[in-house]
């Protein structure tokens, strides 16, 4: 009879190893989820939140007990856009846009939201992963810079207008002088005659 390379470890030992692996995996997922600075949540196929990480709780102010089993739209100002994003992710695999999150205490947070559709190994759609990045500071900085640029542009435009006025004035005077010179020349000619 041909020998096989299949491990002859007793089933109980295999089960113990698998159990230890699962424990390790759970610990790893918990640890990673707590450490991850990016706010992440998982949605079921109906768009209902089934899990959030620590960063999500910190960003939105909602605890797991507050937010799990709620639709994702609860978190955002643009309710309809969330549904459209989910639909797009379902069709194209991923969707990304800028949305305003409303924290539990009503604070508006400008975020970049990415939604990715999840499929099991058979290709069956099983829900979504959602990641949120707080870009409020970046937006404020951008708006600040845009404001500064607008102010400087206005100042420059005003200076340009002054220069134009001055130029017109100078050119006008020069024209007048040329005219006067010409008149003098004509008068001198007339005197000679």
């Amino acid at each position, binding site marked *: 009879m041909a020998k096989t390379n299949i491990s002859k470890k007793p089933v109980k030992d295999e089960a113990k190893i698998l*159990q230890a692996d699962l*424990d390790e995996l*759970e610990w790893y997922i918990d640890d990673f989820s707590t450490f991850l600075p990016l706010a992440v949540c998982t949605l*079921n*196929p*109906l768009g209902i939140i*089934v*899990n959030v990480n620590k960063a999500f709780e910190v960003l939105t102010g909602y605890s797991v*007990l507050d937010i*799990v089993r709620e639709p994702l739209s609860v978190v955002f100002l643009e309710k309809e856009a969330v549904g459209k994003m989910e639909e797009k992710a379902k069709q194209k695999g991923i969707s990304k846009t800028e949305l305003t999150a409303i924290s539990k205490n009503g604070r508006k947070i400008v975020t970049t939201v990415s939604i990715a559709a999840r499929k099991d190994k058979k290709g069956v759609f099983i829900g979504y992963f959602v990641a949120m990045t707080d870009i409020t500071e970046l937006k404020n900085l951008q708006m600040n810079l845009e404001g500064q640029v607008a102010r400087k542009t206005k100042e420059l435009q005003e200076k340009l207008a002054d220069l134009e006025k001055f130029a017109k004035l100078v050119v006008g005077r020069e024209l007048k002088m040329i005219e006067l010179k010409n008149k003098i020349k004509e008068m001198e000619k007339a005197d000679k005659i």
Partner: protein
Amino acid sequence: MIMFDISYLQEEADRLMKIPGVQKGAVLKSHLAAIKERGGTESLAKIEKALSDLGYPLKLQEIKSMREYPEGQTALVSLLCQKLLGYTDEDIFNQAFAASKLSFFGQLVMRTFLSFEQVIKNVSRYWRKHVSVGELECYEFNKKEKFAILRLKKYVFHPVVCLSLAGYFLGMFRYVQPNVKIKETRCAHKGAPFHEFKVTWQ
């Protein structure tokens, strides 16, 4: 920490822990996490100390979701919530309802279901994944009149568990059906041959 004399619970604790049957740690873990969420670390510490004093030590931090623990321990935890933390029936129900949001295993299973009907019709499979004792079945599913009857057989621990189960079941159903309600209509602790839960929705 205030000390409680819990020796009067020893006999009941021993009885519960001797009942055969195991559950996945995820369920137990979510119950203890819900106690912590509700009453903070002080409430959790009281329960953990009481479990240790009764000879059945268990710490939230050490529970592994996929390992097996005695099913009686959930009943014991609920009982201690009543006796030590003053939980009312409604509190027990709400604590289990909250626990279902914190369950790693629940999240793992509930992420794939697409409809309430699918969940209800799969309760037996779902129960078996969590618990080795008792048989949960969907006895009736009436889509037209919007109700379902669940029956739990061969599962007798303590009346406090009925409230806890109802809260946990409701929590699971709410993942897919927002306006669902649940009520225990027959109880194995009150002479019925099984527990029966009526689930209604809008």
